[in-house]
């Protein structure tokens, strides 16, 4: 399996950081997921081979980290924090609102494959709560109106 040149370069660079190959595992999985969309069996197998690990060892690690998905998910992963600081400032309302807007629940995808919704634990935006991440982009001080804007702009981006 071949990744993009850019990612291959990144992987090669990673290996220069550590005294043991295996140390690159977690970043490699995350970066490969960013490119492939999820940590597929093929990705597991490829990374295992590159790091002299068994597929089992890689799967043990993949299943531990909550950002890694082994199944394909919607293109835009909407991760709404509902932890204490966000909860106190109305995160549940935000989450409910998105749920209704997209017609999907926690860890579900819209039928068009555009959105994936997830209720996540603290994302480090406590002082700008409530907050969510769409893929890696932070959206903070959310209101239902602001959420609508974000969803709309993402939809627009897709139709263009």
């Amino acid at each position, binding site marked *: 399996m071949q990744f993009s040149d850019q990612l291959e370069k990144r992987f090669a660079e990673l290996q220069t*950081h*550590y*005294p*043991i*190959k*295996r*140390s*690159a*595992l*977690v*970043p490699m*999985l*995350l970066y490969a997921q960013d490119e492939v969309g999820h940590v597929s069996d093929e990705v597991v197998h490829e990374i295992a081979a590159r*790091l002299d690990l068994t597929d089992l060892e890689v799967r*043990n*690690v993949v299943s*531990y*980290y*909550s*950002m*890694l998905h082994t199944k394909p998910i919607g293109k835009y992963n909407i991760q709404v924090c*509902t*932890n*204490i*600081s966000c*909860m*106190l*400032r109305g995160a549940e309302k935000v989450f409910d609102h998105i749920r209704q807007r997209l017609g999907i629940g926690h*860890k579900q995808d819209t039928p068009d494959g555009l959105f994936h919704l997830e209720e996540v*634990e*603290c*994302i*480090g*935006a*406590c*002082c*700008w*709560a409530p907050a969510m*991440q769409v893929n*890696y*982009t*932070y959206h*903070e*001080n959310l209101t239902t109106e602001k959420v609508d804007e974000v969803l709309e702009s993402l939809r627009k981006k897709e139709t263009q």
Partner: protein
Amino acid sequence: MADLVSHPDEVRVVSKRFGEGATDIDRYLALDGYKATQKALTMGADAIINEVKASNLRGRGGAGFPAGMKWSFVPKQSPKPKYVLCNGDESEPGTCKDRLIFEHDPHSVIEGVIIAGIAVDSHQGYIYLRGEYRYLIEIMEKAVADAYARGFLGKNIFGSGYDFECAVQTGAGAYEVGEESALMESLEGKRGIPRIRPPFPAVVGLYGGPTVINNAETLANVPHIILGGGEWYASLGTPKNGGTRLFCLSGSVNKPGVYELPMGYNLRKMIEVAGGIWNGRKLKAVQPGGSSVPVLTADETDIPMDFDALMKAGSMLGSGAVVIIDDSTCMVKYALRVMKFYQHESCGWCIPCREGTDWLKKTLIRFHSGGGVRRDIDNIQYLAENMLGRTFCPFGDAAAMPTISLVKKFRQEFEDHLEGKPCPYEDHGKIEHLPVLTAWDHRTADPWAQAH
């Protein structure tokens, strides 16, 4: 990009370059950047450690262990390479301070890592950031690359003959990796399961070598201590609690934000710094150190915010997250949300934590949605008390302590949920009321079913 706030009571040390464009290395240099590293190179290891000891700098990650002492535990001679780790896996609910440091002052962290390296004679540092902080990884990677380009990292830094390598590492979503030995496991490409201690990381850490691991904020303070002197830094705070601290004031306040205040700043005043309780509400409780510490009731908030004072008050200063809770909040629901977090993030290694958090979460879900029975209240406390101090790592304590305090201090709120009564704080029209167990849907509530 997170918004910055300010307040006249702030004493800016670690946040002094926030908003000053210090991500640019030239700008950073103009703001006294890398002067501390150069000074440290001339000081020698013992002098650095003594300076840090004198500063009374205590770990900003949560445990509050004196940083200088931690460094002094690293053996001088070691057949294996020594390492310096920056713990930037900031995940404690309520905490968002390291994020600002990485975003606004990345080089100060690099400096802290290098100086710690010089202090323990290590030549390799790693800066571990949580996976969600992708944009910060880019900032940090650029900062590291810039430092390499200037010869501040790599072989013969600043022409001193001292070599120091540094790399940035990403996590992939796991609170437990914030525990120091679990972080080392993760950095070695493994599941984030903590290690048996002893041996402690200072003796056997990353790759089996002696390792210094400090929180990002702790390390970012180090250059300032080197330049300003330990005594100066110590004088900013209270005895044994040196310096200032980034307090993340969040929750039911008008002006939430990250404020740098001296150690020992009064908690009530802190709420005022954050603009007071919002929506004309009243203060009900504060969790003064992130989700892992016992809550304080409104009556208990007239207290200086330092490690020792809070310990005396039965709570902890923790990670500097101050979660302010107003009187419209259901404390049962708060307990549930906290436990939901711990159930989700438990690594599952040991029995009491894995089973205890799952059991408590199940109970609290049922309890809050109207299915509680009287013995649940005692049982919640029983389970939490039996996790406390008996788990493999402090995670179990972190789950147990807030729970115990919530049941103890807000027992009446638990009582108010009994006998099928609806939650007094919910919008009753919207909540589907569940009669005890009958409507309980195992298929959706069973975590194992959800996983597949």
